[in-house]
């Protein structure tokens, strides 16, 4: 690279004895190198930007309707092969009553009551993709494990007992408030003392109620107060997201003994007092929540 600064003679710094011209040449070399690099960098950035989709293109690709610039490969039996990119879930009957059309071609639907997955091919119709449905020969079929039970809970979550029942033991031995004596120690037993104590601290939230809506409201409040008491004591705690994706209304997730666990903390129908418990379930999936303070 040739310098663009022409220095035809050399001077010497009288104070330090340095060759001034050499210093200026070095400086000029650096400046010129940068001047050369910047256009190259700009060209690279421009090239990258030109290969990205614009925001309208991305929006159009993700839209369930309209033309899509990101066409997947054609599907045998499908009319357009465009695919809508849509995924839905719901019951079997909801799938059958869902309004399908060419715009929903490629739609994938997970049946929450059968644990089966279908895809809609337009105009051929629905096609079974995968999943195994548990059925009884003559009786009612069980809901898939972890599916929504219709009240914010889940059915058949696999039990976990890694806490050794210590959380439940704490609930049983809980005092009158959610502020047990002594410092935070992170144990399952102390967490249980807080869970049960909070319930004792707010007894009106556990009384029988005239309707389900009142029970749900009281239960949600008590759940929030339990989480706040756990957080205040020093635990990492929050709400529990069920495998179905729904945030549970009767479970919490917390870290005990350094392990993330999920606890089913309520049981009972609204016509009877709400029972606070600590039945460990899995898998734990903590959703941060500040809870409800005293």
């Amino acid at each position, binding site marked *: 690279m040739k310098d663009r600064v022409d220095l035809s003679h050399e001077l010497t710094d009288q104070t330090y004895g340095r060759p001034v011209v050499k210093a200026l040449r070095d400086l000029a070399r650096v400046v010129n190198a940068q001047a050369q690099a910047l256009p190259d960098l700009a060209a690279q950035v421009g090239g990258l930007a030109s290969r990205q989709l614009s925001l309208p293109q991305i929006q159009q690709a993700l839209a369930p309707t309209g033309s899509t610039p990101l066409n997947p490969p054609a599907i045998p039996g499908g009319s357009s092969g465009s695919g809508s990119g849509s995924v839905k879930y719901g019951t079997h009957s909801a799938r059958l009553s869902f309004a399908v059309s060419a715009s929903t071609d490629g739609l994938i639907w997970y049946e929450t009551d059968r644990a089966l997955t279908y895809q809609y091919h337009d105009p051929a119709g629905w096609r079974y993709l995968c999943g195994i449905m548990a*059925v*009884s*020969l*003559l009786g009612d079929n069980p809901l898939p494990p972890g599916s929504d039970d219709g009240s914010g809970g889940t059915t058949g979550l696999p039990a976990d007992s890694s806490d050794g029942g210590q959380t439940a033991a704490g609930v049983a031995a809980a005092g009158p408030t959610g502020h047990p004596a002594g410092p935070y120690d992170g144990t399952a037993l102390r967490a249980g003392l807080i869970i049960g104590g909070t319930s004792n601290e707010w007894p009106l939230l556990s009384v029988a109620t005239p309707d389900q809506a009142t029970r749900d409201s009281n239960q949600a409040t008590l759940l929030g107060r339990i989480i706040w008491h756990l957080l205040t004591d020093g635990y990492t705690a929050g709400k529990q997201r069920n495998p179905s994706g729904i945030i549970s209304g009767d479970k919490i997730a917390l870290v005990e003994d350094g392990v993330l666990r999920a606890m089913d903390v309520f049981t009972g129908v609204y016509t009877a007092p709400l029972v606070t418990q600590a039945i460990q379930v899995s898998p734990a999936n903590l959703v941060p929540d500040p809870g409800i303070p005293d």
Partner: protein
Amino acid sequence: MLPTDLSFHDAGLLVWMFEYGHALRWSGAKWEWAPGETGSGYIQDFVVAPTGPGWQLCDGTTVDYLVVDPVPAAVSFTTPDLVTNPVYARSNAAYTGTINAPVAPTITAPGVTGAPSATVAVESNAPVTPASVGDATHTHTIGAITAAADGEPRNLDVLPFFRR
């Protein structure tokens, strides 16, 4: 209950019959055993009792088992009591459920008629003409040979279970 609203759209659908421990597959027109299924209605020996709902110890208990043809249904079956009456399996044209009584083997004895004894020359006071004695034939008879039907070949005790 098995879904009744299936069609060719559902071909390949798998269901788990948890009461029997069987997987079925919807062909698009009817139910069939899922790939890998060995079906039901047979007796198998175990060294450890199987777990799960699909097996019944053959101890005389009446259970039902799953059939899929022409449609999935339960068929009642009384298991043979092979615990009280250990048996060896024998092939036949059909299963009857009857534990057949043991049959004693038939034993055929060879002829027991003895051969004539050899002629022995007895000579004394020679040169008197020797006299032959003991040259008459004679036979020995024995009683009937019988065998009890309680023999046992080498055997190994196992647990017979019926696949429901």
